[in-house]
């Protein structure tokens, strides 16, 4: 069993790439952790689809105001500089190219940047929310994910087999083992854990990993 980064460590790594003052949308669940790991001295402005920019942290239990929630329907707070707006303005921010970064989870990412993260197939009740909007418009669309599925199959693949969220939309993938960019229809390896060899990483990846200069060590603190 290869050592791998925890979800919190993957979120920490992604947070290092977010500039001070960036406008950022974090997907529901795992990507929300990114907000906890902003480097000292940087402050991003977080956007939530239901109509808040620059919201604050979760309130203390018992202090929730349920008119003040995020897209995951969790209670948040306001802080100096918070803005409210309606849904069409909110998605104008998304689609109109005004967000610097959108960070999402994934079931599969293909080497051309196709993303599948909304449906695992035709069973049950389909639900999409804002996923298909978020993958278009942000200057960078990054994915946080385990490098493989629970049963060891690659999540970075040649072609997605699950229903697509968007075509050729992802620009960078932070995994439990590596940082991979998508460039000209290829996976380009930027960073990997020291404890894993290139060949081992390649064997866990569903399409060729290309090299473009040095591969840096992927190092994340215990968080």
């Amino acid at each position, binding site marked *: 069993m290869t050592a791998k980064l925890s979800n919190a460590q993957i979120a920490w790594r992604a947070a290092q790439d977010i500039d001070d003052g960036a406008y950022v949308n974090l997907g529901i669940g795992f990507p929300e952790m990114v907000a906890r790991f902003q480097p000292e001295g940087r402050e991003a402005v977080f956007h*939530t*689809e*239901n*109509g*808040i920019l620059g919201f604050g942290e979760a309130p203390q239990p018992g202090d929730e*105001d*349920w*008119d*003040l*929630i995020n897209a995951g*329907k969790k209670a948040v707070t*306001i802080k100096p500089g918070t803005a*409210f*707006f*309606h*849904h*069409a303005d*909110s*998605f104008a921010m*998304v*689609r109109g190219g005004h967000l610097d970064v959108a960070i999402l989870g994934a079931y599969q990412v293909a080497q051309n940047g*196709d993303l599948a993260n909304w*449906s695992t197939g035709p069973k*049950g*009740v*389909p*639900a*999409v*929310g*804002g*996923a*298909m*909007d978020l993958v*278009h*418009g942000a200057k960078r669309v990054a994915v946080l994910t385990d490098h493989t599925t629970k049963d060891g199959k690659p999540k970075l693949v040649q072609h997605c087999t699950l*229903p*697509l*969220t*968007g*075509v050729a939309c992802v620009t960078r993938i932070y995994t439990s083992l590596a940082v991979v960019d998508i460039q000209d229809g290829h996976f380009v390896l930027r960073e990997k854990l020291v404890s894993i060899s290139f060949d081992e990483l390649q064997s866990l990846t569903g399409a060729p990993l290309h090299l473009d200069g040095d591969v840096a060590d992927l190092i994340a603190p215990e968080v």
Partner: protein
Amino acid sequence: MDKRIASLAEAVADITDNATVMIGGFGGSGAPIELIHALIDRYLSTGSPGNLTVINNNAGNGHVGIAAMIEQGMVAKMICSFPRSADPRVFTERYLAGQIELELVPQGTLAERIRAGGAGIPAFYTPTGFGTDLAAGKPVAQFDGRQYVQERWLKADFALIKAETGDHLGNLTYRMAARNFAPLMAMAAARTVAQVSRIVAPGGIDPEAVVTAGIFVDGLVAVPTPAQEEVLNRANVTYPEVTA
């Protein structure tokens, strides 16, 4: 001009069978619970309005609000982006049994279709959904080297929304994130009724603070201390109350 309506029952009296009804809210935030429950009361006492198409971001949570409408059998079709919630049982069971139709729309496309309906724009192109199952069968076109999907406007016979303060002319302000779809729905429906926590005389709202201009609002009814769907669900409330 005075758009005040004396009672919730009057506020929902015009909604007919087979109508398309936009209902404001994102989850519990902005859900016009009292208007919805007044509509349920009418259905239970008269059998109308039924066979409704309801447009909302979600498809109800627990056993109040839209979930209660579905539970009573008033809703034939939901148009929404995310028919899941903490407790989506009511919709899920009916959907899986084939008793309710679902039109699934990406959230931003849903908002823009409603906005377009209110703005007199019959169709528009969006990058959202291109190459996915939700764009199947829709016209696509290329603009400046990128592919876009054509989406149609959404309009409704009625909109039921929740606002914070309204004046006699229908000018509205909202409370925090509760505004979400309401300003768009108010524009897109032939008849819009708002429940508001406070009604003031014209001049009682700073013109700079008006979010929805009164031209988009046909009636308003005062609900001074509105219920919050999330709070009702956390208390396991069912509407109408089941008496043992």
